């Protein structure tokens, strides 16, 4: 009783369907009896979490899959209380410090100290160390990363850290050098199709090859998304038609609507309407850079060749502003206004 993504997630390293070379390495690491700190990185939907879970299982056996969620309260130096969700098994603990915002240092330090100071209790346990999995490590603040660097060394005796992030760019050098870097690349389109076929077989449905390819490319090689798309399409219409539309998330559709509106009419009133839609997107927690990028990509598709460079330039410019500024709406709107102005001039210059 679960979504297909979770239901058919391979649990063991042997069941993983792609990146077989990487799988081999991980298996050797896990069976060697010791494990360095790991930094697992790669795009979303490439299978990072699946691999981490599989490694944990390989090390500790199936009981590492018995997870429980608990909420822990941390107190900042300024006496603010933070509630953080923590997932743990007997052998490891998973945390997503982005919940803590700027106080992530406190969370990381407290948590790691706590884990490190208690020895592995279960006598039967294969390993004497525990593992701390930190998701979204690239969202860690500098402070937290520096704190991590010290604790990683200090408590090496009975604790290992697995960091999970989308890229290494935001991880500071000292932390990177203490870890074994594990890159999990996005699966190729064919690999995505393969996985979908495996899932379809288990579910007892059949996918027309062209539709599978369509989903795979529509998911941008994000396996997680591809499987969700497959299930959503299945819910909507089964048996699949060859030319069935691929379902995009609503916010992406919405971005398309905004782009279309900007291409259709260029007036201040239209700008006002677009602003409302932008607010709607922001309200739904879509990150502003994603919105900007999405709209820019849509706009590029809709204009002539000579305007494309200019639009990308403007998008980059306002993206920079977004990073500096505080009120995302102002910059998003400025980009839209700029585009509309440019596009209108272009239209008027046409004979």
């Amino acid at each position, binding site marked *: *009783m*679960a*979504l297909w*993504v*979770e*239901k058919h997630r391979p649990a063991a390293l042997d069941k993983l369907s792609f990146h077989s070379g990487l799988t081999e390495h991980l298996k050797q690491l896990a069976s060697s009896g010791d494990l360095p700190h790991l930094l697992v990185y790669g795009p*979303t939907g490439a299978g990072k*979490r699946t691999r981490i879970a599989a490694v944990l299982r390989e090390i500790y056996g199936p009981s590492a899959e018995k*997870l429980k*969620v608990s*909420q822990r309260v941390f107190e900042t130096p300024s006496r603010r209380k933070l*509630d953080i*969700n923590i*997932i743990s098994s007997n052998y490891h603990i*998973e945390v*997503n410090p*982005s919940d803590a915002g700027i106080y992530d240092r406190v969370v990381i330090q407290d948590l790691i100290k706590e884990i490190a100071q208690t020895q592995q209790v279960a006598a039967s346990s294969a390993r004497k160390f525990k593992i701390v*999995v930190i*998701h979204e490590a690239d969202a860690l603040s500098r402070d937290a990363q520096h704190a991590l660097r010290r604790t990683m060394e200090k408590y090496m005796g009975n604790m290992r850290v697995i960091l999970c992030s*989308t890229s290494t760019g935001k991880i500071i050098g000292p932390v990177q050098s203490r870890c074994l870097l594990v890159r999990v690349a996005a699966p190729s389109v064919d690999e995505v199709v393969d996985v979908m076929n495996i899932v379809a077989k288990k579910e007892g449905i059949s996918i027309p090859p062209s539709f599978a390819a369509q989903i795979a490319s529509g998911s941008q090689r994000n396996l*997680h998304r591809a499987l*969700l798309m497959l299930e959503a399409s*299945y*819910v909507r219409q089964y048996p699949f038609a060859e030319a069935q539309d691929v*379902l995009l*998330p*609503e*916010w992406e*559709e*919405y971005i398309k609507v905004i782009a279309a509106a900007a291409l259709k009419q260029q*007036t*201040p*009133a239209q*700008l*006002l309407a677009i*602003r*409302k*839609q932008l*607010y709607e997107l922001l*309200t*739904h*927690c*879509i*990150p502003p850079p994603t919105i900007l990028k999405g709209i820019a990509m849509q706009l590029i598709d809709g204009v002539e060749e000579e305007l494309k460079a200019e639009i990308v330039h403007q998008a980059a410019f306002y993206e920079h*502003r977004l990073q*500096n*500024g*505080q009120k995302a*709406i*102002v*910059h998003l*709107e*400025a980009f839209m*206004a*700029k585009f*509309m*102005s440019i596009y*209108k*001039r272009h239209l*008027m210059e046409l004979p």
Partner: protein
Amino acid sequence: MDSDLEALINECSQSTDSQELRPVTMAAPTQSLHSSQKSNGSHGNGRRRAISDRPNFKLARSNSQAQHVLRPPEAAKCTSDLVNDSADDRGEVWWQRYEPCSVEELALHSAKIAQVKGWLEMAINAAAGTDSSQGPSIFRILVLEGPPGACKSTCVRVLAKELELDIVEWINPLDLRASTAAQLEMEDDPVSIVRQFEDFLLRAEKYSGLALYDTADRHDAEEAKRLAFSRHKIILVDDLPNILHRDTRESFRVALQRFISIPAHCSFPMVIVVSECFGMQQVLEDEAPRQRGRRLHDNAESNAEATVWSASDVIPSVVYNSVFCHSIKFNPVAPTIATKGLRRILQLRSGRGSQKSIKLAQQQTDMIKAISNECQGDFRLAVTMLQLSQAAAENTDAGKKRRRGQAGAVTGIIDNNGKQRAGGACRSALDMFHALGKVLYAKREATKSSNGVSADGNMMREKLESDPDEILDRLPVDLSTFGLFVHENYTDFCSGIDEAAAAAEYFSEGDALSSSGRSFQSAASGVANVYGSMVSVRGYMNARGNPLYAGDGTTNEPAGGRRWSMAAFRKPLFFESYKRRAMFGGVWHDPVATDILSKSGLPMALSSASRQTVVQDVLPYWAQIVSSSQHGAATVGSLESSWLRNSAAYNQLMRLATIGDNREGTHNDTSSAMAGKWGKLVTVERGLATHSPLTATAAAAAAAAATATATDALAELKLVLSDDDIEDFSD
């Protein structure tokens, strides 16, 4: 006035038996004033000491005789003390010294006075129990709200005197540590002010007609009769406890609630005077009387209104909205009325207060007029300005006939013609509307010559009618809030997209500027903020109507087909959006939401996966899968009939996942696609989970909630301002 107060308090503290006082005060009024003044040193000190000596009570005897004694009528004083008048009132403030003692002298509209008076009379009748036949009285608390200097307190005092009421006034103990041994028992208690307030209320009620009015002691039968008639009192709360402190506010509420629960005939009516601070409530003023509920709601939620300081915020809403509480709003004093009041003071000063028909010098009349226009409805300020300008004049030529133009020339407030000097002594905040209007309309001075073309090819443009710097200086709100307001509304004023784009770029630049300071050092943020808003405001005002951006083919008609004469200012959606985002963000910490997601097959999704992934990839599909009829039931069957379906967290997740109306709009033709979607969901629910009694109500609620989308609800909140207002102001 300070000395008056002091004497008054001394009177009370010496004994509760007013009998003793009468001869003393009768005999040598001025004597007692002066002596107490000397003994206590400076005025401010004296007052403070006196208050702490005798905590919380100021018993103003307001029967006419005591009043007569304590506050010598100006007429008598002026005639006798005219020569050393200026020496006398050194350090004495005119608005206290010349406090009106009759209704005619109040600088208020007579209708307003009648309104207050009517309430007081009703309340007293109720308190006296004369018309107890009509059931319990609802006249318990009167709230007088209005801007500072609108003569609210004075009005109460004067009316109390006229109706022969005693006033028991609450005054905040200023400094507990400085208090004397009399208050030792309170010193250890950190929130004792609140307790004192409760005590005060209690005492004020308990000792209703105590010895103070014990007519048995009076031998004067006539006097006794008169006093017996006027033995009512009112409780005046002019000085509110610190309601910004949460605990204090809470106990304040409890105290007031308890107070209104006491039947009127057992107690006394209370008058609370609340000075509204200049702030955001000005923007919403028009709506306030009609839609107070909504305004309160807004106040509670958005950042912008956190600065509002109106009666509805100060007084707990439980009390404020109850039937026992009435509110009378005071407007700023109109210039004509202010002129009258100032004239009275000058007449009193010139020693012939009794003769109403006295003529003032032309120059003085001009000055009064200028001051009345300048004071922006604050009568206290007006009197102070008058005193300042007069004091200088009287010093230079004391005793002589005043020469024209002397006063203004010396003080520098008013120039020779009595005309207000630009940037004079008083520059209070602009109205939010006016500030917005000035920026958004960005009017230029009328063309004197034909538009020239300068060397670099730019069109020469006329100067802006109002200086952007000055607008920014005089804002009623902080810079960033104002920026949001301008940003929200500018599109209506742009004639073409080029102009809008130019303006938008300035806003973007301004925001980037004002934010960058913040990340480095907090000290720099203030400057950065100013730069940021200057860039946006100036940039916009420059872009607006700039011929550079004209000629892009669009007409000069403002967008949206609105006439320029009547523009509706909108409130920024920013705050609403921010709030909702925070609300959605709260889902992550909601155990129920976590539960729902893990039940429907996304175990731990909320805590381990990146949030961005969840929002962008997982939730949209999740919502579709779960809400679909056949498969959804199979996939998450356990969820269907469970209470989770009806929980707020579930709705929250659904709403987070479903955005806008794009696809739904194509599928069903309902005007509100969101509602359509919800309707569908609801029918599914009904079909599958009919045994749940909660479903129907939850579904109805969900449908109702969905019909109003986030942005539309707020867009309704429009504010209308006519162009005339702006014209009028910029004169």
